[in-house]
């Protein structure tokens, strides 16, 4: 892993149009870096939930579960990429699945950059200053959405309106995927239950 690879996301987040263009056509985005960003984000959220200051930490320590964060970050990430890919393939998008994944991951960089220091600082603030904590965190969130928007536009070579429409459609598709997934699971459950009851019927009949 070269230093340049690591420096590139920092370039992307301040010069998104330029950066995402380079990512797509100069092949500067790396899958490994995308993975690193994701892992760092998951760790950041875990640390934030566990170690942010008492005044801003409203989590019930009895129910904190680090494995859950994978569920809340990795799963939506994969769903988003799959959903987006499914929609844009039908709507003349130029992005490939790998490009979509790297773009989305790179767009998450501001969250990683902001969460660590705010978590640290939150241990030294009072109630009145806690609004800065929330302000910075929501600022990072907005920054992420802006980057995602620009990234999607560049990757698929869309107009602004089409990007917004496809992004909204992606959310709908995500819901459909979740629905189908649950359907499959419950069907499998039913089948297993059916086989089980047949099995019991047989053994109790001698």
């Amino acid at each position: 892993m070269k230093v340049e690879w690591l420096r590139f996301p920092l370039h992307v987040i301040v010069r998104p149009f330029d950066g995402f263009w380079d990512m797509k056509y100069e092949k500067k985005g790396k899958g490994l870096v995308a993975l690193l960003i994701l892992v760092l984000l998951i760790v950041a959220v875990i640390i934030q939930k566990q170690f942010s200051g008492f005044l801003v930490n409203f989590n019930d320590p009895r129910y904190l579960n680090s494995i859950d964060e994978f569920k809340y970050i990795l799963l939506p990430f994969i769903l988003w990429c799959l959903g987006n890919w499914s929609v844009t393939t039908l709507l003349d998008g130029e992005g490939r699945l790998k490009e979509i994944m790297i773009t989305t991951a790179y767009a998450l960089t501001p969250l990683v950059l902001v969460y660590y220091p705010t978590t640290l600082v939150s241990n030294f603030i009072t109630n009145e200053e806690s609004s800065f904590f929330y302000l910075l965190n929501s600022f990072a969130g907005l920054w992420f959405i802006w980057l995602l928007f620009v990234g999607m536009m560049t990757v698929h070579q869309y107009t602004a309106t089409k990007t917004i429409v496809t992004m909204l459609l992606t959310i709908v598709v995500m819901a459909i995927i979740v629905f189908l997934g649950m359907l499959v699971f419950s069907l499998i459950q039913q089948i297993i239950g059916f086989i089980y009851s047949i099995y019991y019927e047989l053994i109790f009949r001698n």
Partner: protein
Amino acid sequence: MRSRRMLIVLAAIVMLVSGAAPAYAASAPYESYNYNYWRDAVPSPEAYMPSRSITGETLGIGNFLEPSDMYAAANGNVYVLDRGNNRIVVMDSGWKLKNVIAGFDNNGKQDGFNKPEGMFVADDGTLYIADTENKRVVILHSDGQLAGIVEKPKSDILASNFEFVPLKLTVDRAKRVYVVTRGVFEGIVQFDSDGTFIGFVGTNKVQPNAADYAWRLYSTKAQRAKMVLFIPTEFSNVDIDSKGFVYATNIDPGSDTPVKRISPSGDDVLKRYGYFPVKGDIRYRQMGNDGGPSQLVDVKVREAGMYSVLDSFRSRIFTYDEEGNLLYEFGGKGNQLGTFKLPVAIEAIGERVAVLDQGRGRIVEFNPTAFGSAVNKAVALHNDGQDQAAVEVWQQVLKLNSNYDIAYIGIGKSYLMEKRNKEAMTYFKLGLDRKDYSVAYKRYRREVIKEHFGQTMTVILVIALASWAAWVVVRYRRRRRLISHEG
């Protein structure tokens, strides 16, 4: 096998020994709990234990028949309003019968009560009885002589078909009478000392939810006429504190404010600084046999600003402090001593609590346990401003119940006052009190910075100088590289 036999022997010994212990140490027929910060009902030691029950039979005057109200007066007497027998039973604070008031002399004519629902006794012993079916309020001197009768009020603001059916009442120091009346939604009816109607105080507000509102919007006039009206609920009971503020309860399933403290100008001024609303149970099943919010039918203002409310639905007694923190809960539905069929009234006699069970026609007396009286004592000390003395009592409470958030916060507040900020922070954190923690932390932080001002400034200066130097070096190198590239 052998260990098992040992266990049996051990169990037998334990049973024998515990059998010798006083009955007082027996477990209560209910399970006490308190709500923690996350609204879980956490088991708690019992604050009050049932000690005895009093029926009409034990007093030797025949059983109570659907008694409706009870009042413990300042002179030590306890009055029970025996609705079914249309009489008032007077006892002393040791539950010894004093006398029975079955009627009074009304201008030479013998008069009595007809299904009276509510009663109040002033400090001088004057009795106020809501004589419900006779549609009047009867005022008797302490010796049973008639002092006055308040009849249906006459006023321009009352509708012509207004019916005066008094249910519950209370009286302030200026002898103004506050009457909860059946079928009146405008609030509590207020009379002055000579029985003239003054007006209404305290109204329950109606808050239709969005669904109701939308439903009404899209229904025809005929449909709307058939719908349930959005009228405010009536109050279920009243009490008065030493400052003359009326405490009132109402049974409104959707309300988060079923307990109100009504100021003389009619505003609700109850303090609700606790983690959750003052409404009895906050965690309950929505549906089913035992589902739904608490139905508060009585409120009793106790010493040190505490007040107890009685939930007739699940037969529980909730006690709050002046700031609206739930202190303890006890009681329950059932057949044993300490559980009720249909509790209707609660009174406090000193530190003891008495509950009138209408369904079973008896009074149940509760005595505080070590835990309960420690809490009462600490609250009283805190209310008195003696926070430092309260700390010791709170520590005692914590020994009996280490889940008691209010104790942690109480200790923290005292430490905060003594400027022991670091310790205060620890206790506020244990009590999950973020607001006070912030105050303590702010002071602590200032203290630390002040103490280490020299070091802090040195560190900051060194960091600033170092980064400036680094920047200069980097710029110098870069420029040199550029020059060498060009050259």
